[in-house]
């Protein structure tokens, strides 16, 4: 990760700045100021070559006849940090850190103010005495530069520790640091005569020494110099509470920032790369389930937007942390159990079931009070929708894996016997058949007096409904098992070579798009965008007019599942067993739901739920906005097709040969 702009300084030797009392912030804290004539972005690394004023001290130089410069240990916008030997102790090697701050202001009055502020704040620092605060030995201003001489701290700051480690810190470790931080904040906040607000709590300002003791460091005193340079940095600090941006600095600012620091340590999610004040959008235990609910509660309390809802003192927060430490060891954890309670599988009773002689792999169709279902036993069945009563069946010479469609008293369906059959819904008698040169596994669609259907012969066929003759066919580059999607006089379909086609009603190819592997799923077109999944383990969004791909999203495995669109969402399944929900505009994952086997059936949206079957044998009902499970219903074998719904009844077949009707 790139170092934050505010962490340019070597993290080992840093400086303290404490905001004293409740006085109004004199120093601009945050991010980038734009568009205002009197403010400007500073150059963060100001050490331009040839700029005499910014020249570094060189090794061997004796500063104010006392500090023998050894080497540069950090460079920042305000100047450098050096390791030096204090020559007042000639017989002992006493090493100190010397931080230099260069006064860049050209205005004499401003320069003077900067120096005065520096000296006033340094005076306060000198008076502090706490094991978590480094000692200040000396400070002085020499020519255009001010210097702070301070204790060398051996150790690493928490930001470095975070970036060098992998995985989460143990909860006990974080609590130990947090308690120490509360201690030092309590010391500062109760400082007399005026409380001291640290005001810049963040991982990079917390050092951990070899004894696992924390030491607060800060370069904040340099901010006076930054102001003098009319500048600040881009990007927020990420750890500061909202009220700090109104210019309010109270001890509660530090409480929030400590909460933010702990949140970062626990979740490893850097708040500086997230929008400000969005910790609540990254729930701790969702990211790091090993954390106790009690510690999460403490951190959430510290992170309240409203200062009055936080711990009112560092001591109170420490007390809460101590309680967590006591509890987590001794008490059994309280289970979360906040998600809505899923109905037990046994409580869902089918309205009726109907058993075919072989698997039901395809989707059923509902029309006018009847259910039409094709089975791998070669038959198309017609059932009464309200009670599942058998009406008639029509035998073909091949398995039926596609979804039938009913139009004007005729049910149309493809079969592996290479034919598209048209059967009267009243009599169950054949009206006509249309031959292709391969098994028909694509589901027919009807528009403008034509049937559109793909075949394993590698063509998409357009068949005139009246004449039952082919109007045209379009050659694809592989078997067409994908069900065509028709909108705006255009037909969209995929094929097993991975190509997706857009053809017009004359059979002219408008565009083609090539996925890396087969596109068996049906495309869905919505608001000018085409969505389809592929066996190449991606879902694509393609512009409907130009065929240019807008985005793609990678799944764990390939997919046969046709996406469905609702609101701004696109929902689909994958062979990795997951039902995904993405933002259709930018492919951002909204939620995912893991089933126990491949999800090859397509989801169905009805009211506020999504229904989707899985090869684990379950039909799942999830809240489509959140992906939370409402209920699941077990069948005896994989469910490979999409359900249909009518009047609050869900109809679907399973590879256990059974057609189910479930009230929802």
């Amino acid at each position, binding site marked *: *990760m790139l170092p934050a702009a505010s962490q340019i300084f070597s993290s080992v030797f840093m400086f303290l700045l404490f905001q004293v009392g409740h006085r109004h912030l004199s120093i601009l804290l945050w991010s980038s100021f734009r*568009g*205002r004539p009197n403010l400007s972005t500073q150059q963060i690394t100001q050490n331009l070559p040839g700029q005499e004023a910014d020249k570094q001290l060189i090794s061997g130089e004796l500063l104010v006849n006392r500090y023998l410069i050894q080497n540069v240990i950090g460079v920042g916008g305000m100047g450098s940090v050096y390791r030096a030997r204090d020559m007042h102790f000639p017989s002992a090697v006493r090493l100190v850190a010397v931080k230099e701050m260069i006064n860049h202001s050209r205005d004499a009055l401003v320069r003077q103010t900067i120096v005065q502020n520096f000296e006033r704040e340094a005076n306060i620092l000198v008076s502090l005495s706490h094991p978590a605060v480094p000692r200040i030995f000396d400070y002085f201003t020499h020519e255009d530069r001010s210097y702070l001489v301070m204790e060398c701290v051996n150790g690493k700051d928490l930001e470095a520790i975070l970036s060098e480690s992998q995985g989460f810190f143990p909860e006990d470790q974080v609590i130990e640091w947090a308690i120490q931080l509360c201690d030092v904040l309590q010391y500062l906040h109760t400082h007399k005569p005026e409380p001291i607000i640290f005001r810049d709590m963040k991982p990079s300002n917390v050092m951990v020494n070899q004894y696992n003791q924390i030491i607060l460091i800060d370069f904040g005193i340099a901010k006076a110099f930054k102001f003098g340079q009319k500048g600040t940095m*881009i990007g927020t600090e990420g750890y500061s509470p909202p009220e700090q*941006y109104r210019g309010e600095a109270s001890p509660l600012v530090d409480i929030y920032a400590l909460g933010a620091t702990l949140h970062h340590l626990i979740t490893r999610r850097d708040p500086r790369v997230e*929008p400000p004040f969005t910790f609540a959008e990254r729930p701790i235990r969702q990211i790091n389930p090993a954390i106790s609910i009690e510690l999460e509660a403490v951190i959430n309390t510290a992170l309240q937007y409203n200062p009055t809802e936080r711990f009112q003192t560092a001591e109170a927060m420490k007390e809460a942390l101590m309680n967590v430490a006591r509890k987590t060891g001794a008490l059994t954890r309280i289970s979360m159990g906040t998600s809505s309670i899923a109905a037990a599988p046994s409580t869902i009773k089918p309205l009726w079931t109907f058993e075919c002689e072989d698997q039901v792999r395809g989707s059923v169709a509902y029309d006018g009070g009847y259910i039409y279902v094709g089975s791998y036993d070669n038959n198309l069945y017609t059932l009464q929708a309200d009670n599942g009563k058998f009406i008639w069946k029509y035998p073909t010479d091949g398995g039926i894996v596609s979804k039938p469609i009913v139009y004007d008293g005729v049910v149309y369906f493809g079969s592996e016997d290479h034919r598209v059959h048209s059967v009267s819904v009243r009599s169950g008698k054949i009206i006509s058949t249309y031959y292709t040169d391969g098994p028909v596994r694509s589901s027919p669609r009807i528009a403008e007096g034509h049937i559109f259907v793909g075949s394993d012969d590698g063509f998409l066929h357009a068949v005139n409904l009246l004449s039952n003759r082919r109007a045209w066919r379009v050659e694809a580059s592989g078997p067409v098992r994908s069900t065509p999607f028709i909108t705006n006089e255009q037909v969209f379909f995929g094929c097993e070579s991975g190509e997706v086609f857009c053809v017009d009603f004359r059979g002219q190819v408008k565009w083609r798009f090539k996925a890396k592997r087969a596109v068996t799923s049906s495309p869905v077109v919505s608001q000018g965008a085409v969505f389809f999944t592929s066996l190449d383990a991606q879902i694509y969004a393609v512009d409907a007019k130009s065929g240019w791909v807008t*985005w793609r999203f990678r799944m764990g495995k390939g997919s046969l599942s046709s996406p469905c669109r609702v609101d701004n969402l696109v929902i689909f399944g994958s062979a990795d067993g997951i039902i995904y929900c993405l933002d259709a505009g930018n492919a951002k994952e909204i939620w995912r739901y893991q089933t126990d086997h491949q999800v090859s059936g397509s989801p169905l949206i009805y009211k506020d739920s999504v229904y989707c079957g899985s090869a684990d044998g379950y039909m799942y009902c999830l809240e489509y906005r959140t992906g939370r499970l409402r209920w699941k219903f077990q069948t005896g074998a994989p469910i490979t097709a999409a359900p249909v719904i009518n009047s609050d009844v869900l109809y679907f077949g399973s590879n256990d040969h059974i057609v189910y009707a479930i009230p929802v």
Partner: protein
Amino acid sequence: MFDFIKKLFGQKSEPAVADHPTAPEDEQEKSAALPVGEVFSDVEPSESEQILTAPLADAQDFVNPGGAVEPAQFISVVGQSVGKQRDHNEDTLFALSAILATDASSQPLGIYIIADGMGGHQHGELASGVAAKTVANHLINRLYAPFYSLDPEPPSDPLQEMMKDAISEAQRMVIKQVPGGGTTLTAVVLLGEQMTLAHVGDSRAYLIHPDNRFQLISHDHSLVQRLVELGQITDEEALTHPQRNVVYRAIGQMEPFEPDISTLPLPKGGYILLCSDGLWGVVPENKVLSIIRENSDLGEASRLLLKAANDNGGPDNISLVLVKCP
């Protein structure tokens, strides 16, 4: 496959995009009408009026009032003014309206970018110039060039990934070439039925629908926006908040970030407006809407928008791109 390429925009005999967009240091005099595809940056105001508009050179020839333009195309205008209170311009604009028209079909493409540099000294305009040029360059190479390829297959890389890469590249270049500088960047690519938006910072993209809905489609990465969302301040307070110019996300910041990228349907028969906060923070939305609705001449609309911002004090640089959708 395509018989010929017909460019309907800009100077007809010239390439629609300048190969070497004007460098920000370039102080040469700009004429009022600039060819589309130019990067406008650091434009000095003219003596008489601190307003610069750049209508499409010949677009009006194709506009027949009351009728649709044939073939369907994106007609755009850019406008820029230094404002009344700043001494120089730190915004950068880019506009490219292109079309691939054959006897059988026409395929319009539009790429529009607005970048609002931050900070004083030379950094603001450098950052916005570097960012806009880098993004334009990236999109031209990966999106615009294949558009005119004889091979009719569209590029295999998703548009959103191209735009994301373009932003990453701009981020890299700004950090490298303008350390300490920063810029907002709002870019749209109009193609087919959809538009794809890439956005960082607090410049804005609006849709003006034919039914007069004025829809903000970008999300300000600004401190005040977050404070408004949290209920800490009101919308009104946000407009006058002392930190209203603070953005938490900008090209040039040291921390890595994800730009906002999204695709949405084009507002058919409506407009797309990109603008810097010198416009949206100064001229009320209903005023912007009425100017656009009442002026079918885009150049005039642009001029009036700049004037409205300057009449309200012109506290900041004003930049805008206004696009009419077929």
